[in-house]
Structure formats: structure tokens, C-alpha cells
């Protein structure tokens, strides 16, 4: 079974050289720590920067340089700064090759719910609806089940949707799954020490298991 760092590490293996990548708040942010050697990716933050670098040192902290999670950041050589309309022009116009974000629920047709729980205080969708509606390549990073032990991979989302038929891949603490809208979640990899049976039990939506399911290689 993976912890959050493990999920981020597994997702980092999806990165391809030259990609522009938008990382959501939470587990996705950790992906930046595990970019493989020889892979040059550029991180975009939707508040208006391309070429986001690591967190600053105390001396480097600049109130005018934050990411979409409102954390202080640095800019790498080659960075560019722009306004919010231009930022979402990049996103909506599909100039960003990969979006990684968290979710509360994902359906086996690729719907995602990650912004609102009825009856609880709604904080807003931020940029999530724009990101999921436009990205050609969306990976969801999340735990396979919620705190009550219920599956977050469903046949249909019960929560208000963020986007429809948009999620392409899911990396959880238990597995890597591809969304095939016609057939459901196709199991690609098991987390170390996790059995196919455990994944079946934790998945409420349609699960497709074909052939041998390899264990993730995180080396």
C-alpha cells in the first residue's frame, strides 16, 4: 500500500520530457519533488506563473510570488508571469500537457467530484472546473477509500460534479487505473503488497481486470 508520497512518486513516472504540468493542492503538489532524472518538465500555477521553482529560503520569500495554493514560491530561470485570463487561456486552450488533481469521488466513466459536499460549507471550485473540462490528460491522485472506508471509485458520483467524462487515469494508495468510459476502471498496476482481491473490494464502480496485474515499479 502506498502513502501520499508514494502516490506522488508513482505519478511522477508519468511525466514526459518537455511537458507543461499543472499540479493541484495536496498530494499532486508532492509530484514536483520526484521528477525523474533527464525529464525536463515545467510547472504552471493557474494564478499566473510558468516555471515555478521550489519553495523559497527565508531570505528569498516574496509576498508577490505565490502559487495557486497561496504558498510562497520561487521562479526558475525561463519563468514567465501572466494574468489570470492568459493563465486559463493556456489551460482551456490545451497547452498544458498534464493536470494532476485530487478528488472526493471518480466515476467509472471518468466523472469527477472534488469541490462540494451538500450540507457542508462550500468553499468554491477555484480553477478545478476549468482544469478538468479542458485538460487532455488528467490524473487523479487520491486515496482509494474515504475515511469511513467507502470506495471513492464509483459507478456514479454521489457528490456534485466538477466535470464529466474527463479523468483519464487514477493513482491511489492501492492501484493505478485507467478510465475506459465504456467498460469502467481498467486495473493497470497494484501497489506493493496489495492484491487484486483487495482492489476489487475497495472499488465500487465497474472494475476491469485483464491478465496479470503487475506490481508498481517505484525504483
Amino acid at each position: 500500500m502506498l502513502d501520499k508520497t508514494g502516490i506522488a512518486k508513482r505519478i511522477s513516472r508519468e511525466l514526459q520530457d518537455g511537458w507543461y504540468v499543472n499540479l493541484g493542492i495536496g498530494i499532486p503538489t508532492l509530484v514536483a519533488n520526484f521528477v525523474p532524472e533527464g525529464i525536463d518538465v515545467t510547472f504552471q500555477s493557474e494564478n499566473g506563473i510558468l516555471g515555478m521553482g521550489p519553495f523559497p529560503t527565508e531570505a528569498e520569500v516574496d509576498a508577490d510570488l505565490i502559487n495557486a495554493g497561496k504558498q510562497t514560491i520561487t521562479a526558475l530561470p525561463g519563468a514567465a508571469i501572466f494574468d489570470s485570463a492568459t493563465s486559463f487561456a493556456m489551460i482551456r486552450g490545451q497547452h498544458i500537457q498534464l493536470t494532476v488533481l485530487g478528488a472526493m469521488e471518480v466515476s467509472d466513466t471518468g466523472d469527477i467530484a472534488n469541490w462540494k459536499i451538500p450540507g457542508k460549507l462550500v468553499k468554491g471550485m477555484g480553477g478545478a472546473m476549468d482544469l478538468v473540462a479542458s485538460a487532455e490528460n488528467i490524473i487523479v491522485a487520491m486515496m482509494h477509500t474515504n475515511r469511513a472506508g467507502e470506495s471513492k471509485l464509483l459507478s456514479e458520483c454521489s457528490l456534485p460534479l466538477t466535470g464529466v467524462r474527463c479523468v483519464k487515469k487514477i493513482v491511489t494508495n492501492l492501484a493505478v487505473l485507467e478510465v475506459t468510459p465504456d467498460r469502467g476502471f481498467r486495473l493497470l498496476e497494484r501497489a506493493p503488497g496489495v492484491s487484486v482481491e483487495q482492489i476489487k473490494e475497495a472499488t465500487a464502480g465497474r472494475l476491469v481486470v485483464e491478465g496479470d496485474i503487475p506490481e508498481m515499479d517505484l525504483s
Partner: protein
Amino acid sequence: MNKRVANAREAIAGIQSGMTLMLGGFGLCGIPEKCILALADTDITDLTCISNNAGVDDFGLGLLLHSRQIRKMIASYVGENAEFERQMLSGDLEVDLIPQGSLAERCRAGGAGIPAFFTPAGYGTEVGEGKEVREFNGKPHILETALTADFAIVKAWKGDTDGNLIYKGTARNFNPVMAMAGRITIAEVEELVEPGELDPNQIHTPGVFVQRIFQGDNYEKRIEKRTTR
């Protein structure tokens, strides 16, 4: 044309109860903190505020929430503010949540004379409810309309008395698009210079979009999540 006004109080002259304001900034980064303070010092109420966020309890738009001057908030994310929660749950505050990219584009559209445009964001969600849906290239889109405001209030790094503005870092964010969308646009800047001191090639907001400008002193520029390595 000299658009300089003396200070924030003079800059906000004419803002009245019931008006719609746009306020630049993302979180507390790049917010027009001097004009917000000046507004908090008035008895103007029933404002509709369009801003990506709603400040924190004791800074930014949180100050106007605390003094109950805001009737309606149009934003994309409002999670950092306990006063906001109280007023929203009690029904005192109306809230309209808009996807961040649609918010930015709707402001730009308002400033650019584009009354409506199609975007895929929000299709199939409650944001799309009641909106026209149309497919382009096999993908469903919804029709979103332009946003404008009686006053737009923005914060820039440098400006000149003709109203030309230059922003610094990610404090730029919504400021340029909101500057375009105000019937009257107020700019507060850290440094106000004479025309000719800024390179025409480096202007982010051309002066035509700005009607009033002043230099604020001692910007607090509070950091919400100071994160270091």
C-alpha cells in the same frame, strides 16, 4: 491626461451603497489594500464584490465582510474566512461561485466588449445549469456572459499619472482583466511616476483602462501561507 488623485479616500469617491465592485488579487496577493481600508472607513453598504477570493478575517475583503458592507460575493474560492462562513450560513451574504478561468475570461470579455462566449468549463455541473449548451468539435460548451462593474479597483507595482500600470510577480493575477472591466477603474500603486518613465513596451495595463491612480504607502502585503524550504 493626469489621473492622479491624492489618496485612497479620494480615489473611492462616488462609490455608493448597492454598487458592484471588482477587486483584483489572488488570496491576499496583489489586493488593493489601501482602497479596501478606505472603504471599510465609510458607511457604504450592500456592495456586490467580484473578486477571486474573499480575504481573511482581518485583512483584505474580510474587513468589509466584518463590517457587513458586502451583500453579495462573486468569487471562485472563499475558503479562508470564518466571518464569511458565518454570514453565508446565516443567509446574510449571497454567494455566487464561478470557475476561476471563467471568472477571469468573463471580466476580460466585459472589458473587451464581448458580451458572451462559449467555454467547456462547468458543463455537466451545477455551474452549467440553465445555461445554453452547444457542441463545438464534438465537445459540449456552455455560454457564459461578460462581467462588468461600476468600479474596478486594482493594485499595481508601478504606475504613471497617465494610468499605465506594471505589476510585479503573481500579484498581477486578476488585476489586468478587472482594470479593463470597470466603468471607473481605480489603480493603487507602490510607486507613481511621471509619463515617460515607464517603457511603453513593458506596460501591462495601458492607461486607457484607468481613470484614477494614487500611490499607497507602507504596503503590508500579508502572506497567507509562508512556505520555505
